[in-house]
């Protein structure tokens, strides 16, 4: 029984590690889209953040400098998106695609120029990464049945950015649903005309929304390359930004359901490789490649309204033109 509990905890622990970047990106998408700006550029910001973090951590030897660089790189792309979509009222989808492709190309070009390592950064040493933290009392309480292992195996032993990811959910909730800024931001995504006639600038609100999104994606990027991984590998975001987008929709643009969707997707990702070679009754060997695309399939089914409805913010994707 105790061994099964440890196994379950190990799976959940893996799920938490895989879910962390999803949570950060999904919260980024949540803030941006609640303000009315579609963000399919999560993937690009994540990738740019990952590269900047690894590159600067390599050059300076400090993960903190890497983190700062990740935030800066991701925010820069967010500002490009904002300049196109808010200032010039361009197509938000097109701008998002541009951000993604730009990040894909830029990371490899700059990585080659800096390190001549085939688009990678050199592997980072332990000092150059965020290491795992032990929570207080993790070892002393390990002997306590059920809760002891829960504390030691699942809650303790993650790096700083995993805790930041889980902390970002209540923070985003508080910011959007418990502050005046949040109320206005959400109004800008639902009925920008009302915000405007109240004398509040829709553009400024939306810029702040995408700035927060940029910061959160930067954190996620740093997590990939200087916390979870040890260095940048080309295309290392590997669709996580899009998976976060799926989680955002799956969680219907609400923090807690979005968190649960991220955890579910992280869990699927952890479990899928463990199913390799296993036989299901009637089905035969588990098609692992198909298990790993389940989140996308579930999102499509949800969007089709076959169970529940996922209604986006009403002004999502609609540029706001101030009447003079």
């Amino acid at each position: 029984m105790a061994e099964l509990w440890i196994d379950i905890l190990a799976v959940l622990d893996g799920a938490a590690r895989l879910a962390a970047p999803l949570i950060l990106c999904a919260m980024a998408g949540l803030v941006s889209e609640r303000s009315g700006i579609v963000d399919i550029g999560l993937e690009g910001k994540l990738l740019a953040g990952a590269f900047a973090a690894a590159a600067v951590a390599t050059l300076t030897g400090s993960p903190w400098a890497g983190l700062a660089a990740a935030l800066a790189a991701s925010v820069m792309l967010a500002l490009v998106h904002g300049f196109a979509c808010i200032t010039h009222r361009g197509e938000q989808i097109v701008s998002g695609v541009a951000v993604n492709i730009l990040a894909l190309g830029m990371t490899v070009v700059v990585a080659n120029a800096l390190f001549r390592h085939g688009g990678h950064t050199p592997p980072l040493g332990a000092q150059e990464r965020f290491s795992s933290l032990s929570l207080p009392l993790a070892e002393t309480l390990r002997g306590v049945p059920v809760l002891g292992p829960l504390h030691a195996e699942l809650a303790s032993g993650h790096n700083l950015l995993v805790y930041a990811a889980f902390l970002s959910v209540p923070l985003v909730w508080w910011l959007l649903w418990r502050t005046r800024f949040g109320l206005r931001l959400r109004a800008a995504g639902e009925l920008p005309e009302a915000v405007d006639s109240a004398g509040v600038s829709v553009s400024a609100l939306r810029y702040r929304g995408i700035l927060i999104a940029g910061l959160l994606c930067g954190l996620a990027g740093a997590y990939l390359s200087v916390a979870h991984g040890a260095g940048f590998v080309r295309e290392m975001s590997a669709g996580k930004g899009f998976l976060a987008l799926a989680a955002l929709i799956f969680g219907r643009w609400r923090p807690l359901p979005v968190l649960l969707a991220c955890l579910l997707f992280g869990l699927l990702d952890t479990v899928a490789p463990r199913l390799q070679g296993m036989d299901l009754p009637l089905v035969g060997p588990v098609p692992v490649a198909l298990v790993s695309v389940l989140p996308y399939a579930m999102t499509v089914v949800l969007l089709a309204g076959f169970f529940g409805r996922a209604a986006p913010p009403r002004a999502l994707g609609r540029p706001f033109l101030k009447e003079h």
Partner: protein
Amino acid sequence: MTALPRWLDTGVLPVVNLALALLAAAVVVALVGEHPLDVFAVLLQGAFAPGSIGYTLYYATNFIFTGLAAALAFQARLFNIGAEGQAMLGGLGVALACLSLEPVLPGALVTVVAIVGAALFGAAWAVVPGWLQAYRGSHIVITTIMFNFLASGLMVWLLSGPMMRPGQGSPQTRLFDEAVRLPAVHDLLRGLGFEAARSPLNLSFPFALLACAAVWVLIWRTKFGYALRAIGHSEEAARYAGIPVRRAVVVAMALSGALAGCMALNEVLGVQHKLVLNFSAGYGFTGIAVALMGRNHPLGILAAGLLFGALFQGGAELNFEFETITHELALVIQGLVILFSGALAYMFTPWLARLLLVRSTGRG
């Protein structure tokens, strides 16, 4: 929005936007520590040297198909971000036709079935998001993105399992029969008595040109094309005019998917002669850049397709010439083109309009 005269809107604006994208790319090159003019010279040389024109046209073939796919959907203001997945499915259609019919039918006939298969499979993968948008109200951008990942998962599963070449570890099918393929252009030319450098350019290129013509006729010379453009301008007005909007959306997506699927003709039936994982290599996304650059017009797409073909072929040369600049520079330029000629397309409209006004008032 300020209206510009047609010649400015379709002639000058794309050039200005391209110039801006290249300028920004030049800044990147300079920051990396190379001379931008040297890099662009290598790009041009790599694209248009006598031996490389075939390669340029071969890349252009992919971009014309995916560009047309994006443009056809754009006409009805549908963002088909799913050309990548639709192209993968097109490849699957080709492979299924070839692998299953080779033993029973003559090669030429199998080739024809494979062409139809590419279009049908691509169309089928686009119809579902189209239908979901038209009848269930789910957003086409999100569903097509999801369908890209679903396609990629499907391909990984098929190519590392049921369809994998027996006795081999890499995710690809066995080679198709010698008789089943689109012949290479240099072979055709040799048959006519001309010598041409070997290149992957094959019969798909003339097909792509035909597709350009067909899309032009469809959009500007048929009732359906009129319906599409009407929906693009105002869905409400189109519905009020009695256009069956939902059906038109589904059909537009089917045609768009079929065009994207046809990209597989070039790669799978023309060059690789087997289905390989990730043969679509991002060309589906490049199609968005091509369509934006070409202002959703087949002629513009032809020109933009050639430009991107040159960019990719020339980009391949960069790896040999420079230590610090690699062919991914083509991706940077592609991203910048999408940014400037798509998202920021009208940044210069007021500015150009003012310039025009100053000139005409100065004259008057």
